C-alpha cells in the first residue's frame, strides 16, 4: 500500500522524532515537544475531515471530552493511564459518531457553525459538573511515576502510530471516496456509495484521534480546565493546517512544528500567542495560499504528470 519512498521517509522522520523524544532532557523542551506532537495530531485530524470538504470545528470539544474522560477515569476510578487514554479515545469516537449522525445532515457553513456552538455548549457543561471540577477544572492527572521519564517517547509513539493510520487511510480507497464526496457528493452516491456512512466514519475516526490527543494532553499537563478547550483550540489547529499547507499530508505536521516552536520561543520575550497565530494565518492566506509545502513545491521545476490526471483535477 505504501510506496518505498514514502516508507523510507516515514522511517526516517519517525525514527528522528522518537530519538529526539528520548534524548531531550530539558524539562521545558520536553513539554514543547509533547505540545508539538499533540498539536500535529490535531492538525492532521482536522485536515482529514477537510478531505471530504467539511471543517470540523467541533474538534476542540472532542479533545476536551477525551481529556476529561481520561482524567476522570484516572483520578476517580484508578484506571491504568494507557487504558484510560484508549477508552477516552474510543468513547470520544462514539460520541462524535452520534454528533455526526445529527449534524452531517447539514453541510458547509451550517456544519461548521454547529461545531462552534457545540464546543462552547460543552465547555459550559463541564463547568456545571462538580465531579469534573467545575470552572476551576481537574487536577492531579498523573501517569505512573516509573513512566515519567518515558512520557515524551510514549506521546510521540502514540501520535506517530495514529498519523500513520491517517496516512494509510488517505491513500486507500477510503481516501478516494472522501475526495469524491468533496468534489461532487451526488456522483459518489450515484455509483452506490453510501456517502453518509463514510462521512460519519470519517468524523468518528478523526475524533477518536482527537480524544486520544485529549487524553495525552491531560496526562502531559496534569491539570485541565474548561478554558483549555475553547474554539481557539480548533482555530490554532486550523492555523497549523493552513500555514503548513493543506494539500499535502505532511503540511499540517510542518505547520504544527513551526508555529508551536515559534510561539514557545517568543513567549520567552513576552510575545502574545494570539498575535503570532493570527498574524501567521493572515500572512499565509494572503501571500502563500497553498501554505509552506505548496510554496516549496512551486519552487521545484514541474514534473510531468505521469501518475494519472486524477490528482491534478482535484487541485483547485
Amino acid at each position, binding site marked *: 500500500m505504501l510506496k518505498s519512498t514514502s516508507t523510507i521517509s516515514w522511517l526516517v522522520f519517525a525514527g528522528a522524532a522518537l530519538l529526539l523524544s528520548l534524548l531531550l532532557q530539558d524539562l521545558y523542551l520536553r513539554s514543547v515537544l509533547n505540545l508539538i506532537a499533540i498539536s500535529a495530531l490535531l492538525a492532521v485530524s482536522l485536515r482529514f475531515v477537510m478531505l471530504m470538504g467539511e471543517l470540523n470545528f467541533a474538534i476542540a470539544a472532542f479533545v476536551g471530552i477525551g481529556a476529561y474522560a481520561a482524567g476522570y477515569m484516572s483520578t476517580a476510578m484508578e484506571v491504568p493511564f494507557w487504558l484510560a487514554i484508549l477508552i477516552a479515545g474510543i468513547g470520544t469516537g462514539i460520541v462524535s459518531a452520534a454528533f455526526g449522525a445529527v449534524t452531517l445532515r447539514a453541510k458547509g457553513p451550517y456544519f461548521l457553525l454547529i461545531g462552534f456552538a457545540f464546543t462552547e455548549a460543552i465547555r459550559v457543561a463541564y463547568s456545571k459538573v462538580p465531579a469534573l471540577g467545575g470552572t476551576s477544572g481537574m487536577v492531579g492527572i498523573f501517569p505512573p511515576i516509573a513512566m515519567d521519564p518515558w512520557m515524551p517517547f510514549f506521546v510521540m509513539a502514540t501520535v506517530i502510530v495514529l498519523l500513520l493510520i491517517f496516512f494509510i487511510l488517505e491513500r486507500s480507497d477510503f481516501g478516494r471516496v472522501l475526495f469524491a464526496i468533496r468534489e461532487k457528493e451526488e456522483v459518489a452516491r450515484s455509483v452506490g456509495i453510501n456517502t453518509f456512512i463514510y462521512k460519519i466514519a470519517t468524523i468518528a475516526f478523526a475524533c477518536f484521534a482527537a480524544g486520544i490527543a485529549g487524553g495525552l494532553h491531560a496526562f502531559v499537563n496534569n491539570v485541565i480546565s474548561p478554558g483549555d478547550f475553547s474554539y481557539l483550540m480548533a482555530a490554532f489547529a486550523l492555523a497549523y493546517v493552513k500555514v503548513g499547507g493543506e494539500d499535502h499530508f505532511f503540511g499540517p505536521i510542518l505547520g504544527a512544528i513551526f508555529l508551536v516552536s515559534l510561539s514557545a520561543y517568543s513567549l520567552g520575550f513576552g510575545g502574545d500567542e494570539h498575535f503570532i497565530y493570527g*498574524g501567521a494565518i493572515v500572512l499565509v492566506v494572503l501571500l502563500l495560499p497553498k501554505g509552506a509545502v505548496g510554496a516549496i513545491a512551486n519552487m521545484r521545476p514541474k514534473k510531468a504528470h505521469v501518475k494519472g490526471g486524477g490528482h491534478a483535477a482535484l487541485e483547485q
Partner: protein
Amino acid sequence: MQTFIQLGATTLQIGAVYVLFSLGLTLIFGVMRIVNFVHGHIFAVAALVVAYLLPILVGGGLAAPAAYVVASACGIAVSLALGAIIYLFGFRYFQRDLVGSFILSIGLVLLLDGVLLHVFGGAVRGVPEIFPGSVNIAGAQITVQRLFLCGVAFLMAGILYWTLGHTKLGRALRAVAYDHEAAMMMGVPYARIAFFGFLIASLLAAIAGALIAPVSIVSPVIGTDYLIKGFIAVIIGGLGSVPGAILGSLFVALVETLGGYYFDSSYAAIAIFALVIVVLLFRPKGMMGRA
C-alpha cells in the same frame, strides 16, 4: 401575568442587540457567502472606543448624552474604517470561498484579539449611566437606557428592511444574494455591491456595540459571546435570510431569558444549543432557509 410581561420586555431588550448583530452576519453571508467571525470584533471595537472615550469626554465637562453621541460617532467611525480595511485587503479576494474566507476571518480574530488586548488592556470597563431613570410599561420595569437601546435597534432593523425592499441598493443586494452571476449579467456591479453590503453589516455591528456599551461591562472579548449567539440565531433562522435572522435572534433571546429566570443563566447556553439541534433535525437549512 406581571412576570410574563417582564420576561417579554427582557427578551426584547436582549433580542434587540442580537437582531442588529445577526442581521449583519446574515447580510454578509447572503451577499458574499462568507462566514465572518471578525464581526464580533467590529462590534467590540465600537463598544471599547465608547467605553474609553466617554469618561474622558464627561470629565472634560460635556453633558452625558452629548458625550455619548460624540463617543458613539467616534466608535462607529473606527469600526467602519476597520471593516473597510478588512474588506479591501482581505475578504475582497475570498468572496464565495467558504473555507478560505473562514480561515482568513479566524486569523483576523486572533490578530485583533492580540491588538485589542494590547491597546485597551484586559480589564473590564464600566460606562457611566447616560439616561438615568426607568419607566413602567404595562407593569414591567424598564430602564430608560434599555428602552433607548431597543428603540434604536428596532429602528435600524426597520430601516434595513425598508432599504432592502425599496431602494436600488437593496434590490441589488437581494439580486446578488439570490444569484450573483445572473445579477452581474443584468448589470449589477457585484464588487461594489459586495463592498456596500459588508459596510452596512459592519455599521449594524458598530451601532450594536455603541448601544451595548452603557448597559453592559465592556472588555476586549465581549464580541465572542455575541458571535456565538448571533451565529446560532442565523442558523436557526436560515443563513442569508433577513426575517430568519430577526426571528432567530428573538428566539435565542427568549430561551436565554426563560433559562435565566427559571434556572441558572449559564444553562441557557446549553439549552440554546439543544434548540439548534432540534431545528436542524427537522429543517437542515434553518427555519427560513432556501434549499
